[in-house]
């Protein structure tokens, strides 16, 4: 029986993966079409407004822009899949290594952020559920409502003013020196991480709080209490297990927010991540770089959502039975 459930889960996963790949192809067409169709002539973009018509044509030929749209798309996609992502128009250098390096930096920043956000937000959610409607709950709720709404660049500026200018505890730029050890790196990343966290903490904490409250009122919780179990055991062994499940989905959904936040945070703190690269590419209209970054981000977002769904399905017997067509 266990085996058939496993194969059902595998089939479910493969089906989802296939759908995701299909969507990704669709997204790649959309990205390509969006960037190529929107106005702005490439020759003029590169050579400037006063370039002669012949020179503009020459540049278009060199870039292969005189070919039909479909051919260019297939060429782009083919290159993408084989690791040749083309060259930046502005820098003239290959994109793949540059984007890879920047992506790595962003993953480091995001990793540190999540390592900070997840324990803090889950604890906040649990505490406010247990102290429901009391002062602690209200304060936590108030902080999360307020912090969700303030744009990241605003809170970043306040952080820089307080903890870098007024109290010189942290550097105002997150340009980590080459030879920095882990502790120095953390010091450089502290302000960006604190700036990006509130929104994530707010959402996750509120979800955990809501599902904790539901589970605390459930019949099995009452039974456990009436059996005479220690309240601590009831919470940790029974309630938490169920209450934390929805948090997985929310955390995965927050990855999209995190990426959006990273774009802003990296700009404010001069952090050499993929968000900053995206902004630079957008401001100078470096089309190949824009296309590559957006496609990479789309793939990462879709993969993380898929991973979260899969984790959720594996951990939740009820959903597992549904997803695998009742194979259990």
């Amino acid at each position, binding site marked *: 029986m266990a085996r058939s459930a496993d194969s059902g889960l595998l089939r479910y996963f493969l089906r989802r993966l296939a759908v995701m790949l299909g969507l990704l192809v669709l997204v790649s067409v959309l990205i390509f079409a969006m*960037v190529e169709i929107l*106005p702005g002539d490439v020759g003029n973009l590169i050579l400037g407004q006063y370039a002669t018509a012949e020179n503009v044509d020459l540049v278009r030929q060199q870039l292969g822009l005189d070919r039909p749209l479909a051919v260019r798309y297939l060429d782009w996609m083919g290159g993408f899949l084989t690791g040749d992502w083309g060259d930046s128009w502005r820098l003239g250098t290959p994109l793949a290594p540059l984007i890879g390096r920047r992506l790595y930096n962003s993953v480091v920043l995001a990793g540190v952020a999540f390592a900070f956000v997840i324990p803090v937000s889950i604890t906040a959610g649990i505490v406010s559920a247990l102290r429901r409607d009391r002062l602690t709950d209200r304060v936590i709720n108030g902080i999360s*409502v307020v912090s969700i709404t303030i*744009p990241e*660049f605003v809170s970043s500026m306040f952080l820089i003013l307080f903890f870098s200018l007024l109290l010189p505890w942290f550097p105002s730029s997150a340009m980590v020196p080459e030879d920095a050890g882990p502790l120095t790196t953390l010091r450089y990343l502290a302000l960006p991480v604190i700036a990006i966290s509130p929104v994530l903490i707010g959402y996750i904490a509120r979800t955990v709080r809501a599902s904790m409250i539901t589970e605390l009122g459930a019949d099995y919780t009452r039974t456990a209490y009436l059996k005479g179990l220690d309240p601590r055991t009831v919470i940790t062994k029974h309630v938490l297990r169920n209450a934390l499940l929805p948090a997985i989905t929310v955390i995965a959904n927050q990855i*999209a927010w995190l990426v959006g936040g990273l*774009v*802003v945070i990296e700009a404010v703190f001069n952090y050499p991540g993929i968000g900053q690269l995206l902004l630079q590419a957008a401001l100078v209209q470096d089309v190949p770089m824009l296309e590559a970054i957006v496609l990479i981000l*789309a793939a990462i977002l*879709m993969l993380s959502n898929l991973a979260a769904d899969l984790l959720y399905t594996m951990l939740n017997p009820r959903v597992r039975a549904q997803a695998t067509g009742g194979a259990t």
Partner: protein
Amino acid sequence: MIGTRLRTLLASPGVTLAVAVVLGWLAIAVIWPLLVPYGPTAQQLGGRYAPPSAEHWLGTDNLGRDVLSRILAGSRSVLIVGLASTTLGVAVGTTLGLVAGFYRGRVDELLMRSLDLLMAFPIIVIASVILAMLGPSRLNLVLVIALMLAPYNARVVRSAVLSWRDRDFVAAARLRGESGAYILFRELLPNIMGTVNVEFTMRLALSIFAVATLSFLGFGIQPPTPDWGLMVSEGRPFYQIAPWVVVAPAAAIASLVVAINVVAQRLRAS
């Protein structure tokens, strides 16, 4: 109904304050030319980086412009773009939500899946790509933000429609031979107006968040127009010698978005 709404809004001092802040900024956006002590773009190169004083309550910036005047004048662009994009986004989103929720079936499936796809992307990422290609202008900013808000709105409206579409009065309208548009906008829409109003307030906060952020990043309002997001990014290089140039617009943005959100939360809870 407006009366009871107002009373629930004014029930707690925090919410009353939030309403006052929102109305205050709205009033300033309309009458700022009467209030400003100096022209918001008037430069006084002799008086650059002046700290807050009796003449310049919030100091001056790198070009000697009066920060208070720029803050008051800047409320207009953020509120115009915010209100316009929210109105457009909620109008489009509500229509899509009504159509999807009422017709169900394949239309619903197709609409919702495409919106899911749009929502899978961070707003700021799509907005910067589109604005980079279209070029920054107030109209483009409104269109892009409306496009980003509509899916979220459509989803909420759709689920509100689902609980009304099977009522007798809808069936009756169908039997009378009313058109689809009539049922959507004259029968269903009035019943979900409460939801739409709450949605509008919540989306307005998000929209102002986006306007400020995009202007800060350089894709929104362009200099020398006084704008809060832009003022923060213009003041950033010299925040160490003139922090007031950054603090004032940052505080203005925070006060407006927090106040709108407090009102929205309250409306949703009631």
